């Protein structure tokens, strides 16, 4: 189990950040922010 856990944790954080960066960039390109600003 250990041999899965470490790469999973690292990859999960990496992909999570990648997807958040993607969300941020796409929303920014449309003149919006990731967090809603009324």
């Amino acid at each position, binding site marked *: 189990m250990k*041999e899965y*856990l470490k790469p999973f*944790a690292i990859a999960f954080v990496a992909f999570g950040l990648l997807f958040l960066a993607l969300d941020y960039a796409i929303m920014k390109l449309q003149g919006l922010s990731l967090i809603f600003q009324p």
Partner: protein
Amino acid sequence: MKKILWLAVLAAALLGPCLDLPGIESPLAVAADSSTAAAPAHPPAPKLTAADYPRIAGVNSRVFVWLAAQLHLWFAAFVLAVPIFVFIIEAIGMATRDKRYDELAYEFIKVSLTAYSFTAILGGLLAFGLLIFYPHLFQYLASIFKESMFYYALLFFAESACLYIYYYGWHWLQGGFKKWTHLTLGLLLNAVGTVLMFLANAWTTFMMSPAGVDAQGVFSGDAWAAIHNFLWNPINLHRTIANVAYGGSVVGAYAAFKFLSATAKEQRAHYDWMGYTANFIAIAALLPLPFAGYYLTAEIYAYSQQMGITSMGGIFAWLFIIQAVLIGALFLSANYYLWCGMGRSDGAARYNRYIKYLAIVIVGAFLVWFTPHTLILTNAELKALGGPYHKYLGPLGIMPAKNGAVNLMIIMTTLSFLLYRRANKIATVAWANTGNAIQVALFTAGIANILFISIYHGYFTNTVYKVASSIPQVLTTLIIIVASTVIDFLMYRGAKQVAPLHWGRVPDRAQYALFLLAVAFTWLMGLMGYIRSGLRQHWHVYGVFRDASADAFTPTLGYAANVVTGATIVFMALVIFVFWLSQVSGRKTPPSGYWKEQPA
């Protein structure tokens, strides 16, 4: 290649008016003449009355043209799509030097040959229908698109020549340079077919989003502007992808038909492999299709908000619920076929336990996907419910929930593919465990991101955020599909096989999933085609050329569904006829005693 095609279309549209062909009037020449005569170069769109539409007793002109157009489009989609994947399969066969691919490609193109005749016949029927019942509309469109219509007709010669040499020369053009020549013919066939479709799309989309004309329908003379109208490219993209998915599904049905009627074990194995390949093609094209559909719909909204609201929030909204049910049926049947197909592998038992979880997520997403926002209720039911929205179903009826659901369905289908792909393999690379962990992390993080966007942006922001956030959702799904496939490819390169795959070891019920796929695709295309066309409402050319015929009203959804269902049944009957023809062409009856003996 696409650039060349674009250039070809551009050149045809731009050079067309400059060519001085006998009998063909150049718009430039017309403009020059008219300047001296002080008359408009092109007349405005005619203002018709019901008397201007010829009738034939006992024939409903709208239904006749509708059926002819729909049947023509189904066959055209099929015959345009099959050469695309035949070309790819032939190229794979050449790269791997595996003759089975070549034989498979040949069998695919053989099925499409008879369908090609049907396409031409139905195209002729449609043209005659338009000329007889809608002569003023046809004349108006022909006056704007005369060049493209002329070259369209000429391109049919090129299409037919390419197709016939490609098919009849298959066994002649084998090996070395000859095989490359054959593959090039396949490429040409696809290039001509694609240009044909793009030209026909221009006429259709011009009727929805006219360009190159003023408010009265007076044509400016710019043929390229009329072709390159607002919805042309969205339709081009959507139809190209959809045609591949559709062609795959119809050929899959053919393979299922042959599988079920086969008696020899080898035949069952062959048609099982053919069915799997066709299903793979259909699903590979189905996965990006919802995104192309969203792009098209977004462009329809951008062109005309009224048209967009009519489609998804107005009279056609309930057809989208039927669409959702059919798309869900497509995903379910495609996944079910894959799960059944895992029985071909002795190593699939390792993954069988995961299938139930995939099924639960897909069915759950399917239920959300087709949940309506509002229900058709009686007053008593409204009172009992406390309003038009059910307290649980209401939130699931809006687009953010559906965006999340469809992305989950696509991701789970990708996962089904990955499980199927690795069912018979054992990875030998040292980093296999790490690779698995990375893939699980990719899916988990991606799904979490989709749920975050669906829930946060969908329910806690305004409409602008809701619409804008659908793009990162789509990109997340695409990243998951591409990245997981690349990791899987690298991880299983040089992998060991558990045992040889048992082609043919698949239950008969899996074949019915392939039939369902083809029927659902056909019905779906018909219903969505009705919406696309119906969006023009009482206009022949939206906002420019009014429909004054007795049928210038939007039929009820029930009536439209009946017409499309009838057309689907006719199409399926014709397809079965095509399948039967391909079967009898291979049969030989020894005519003992019929022919007189020839002296040696």
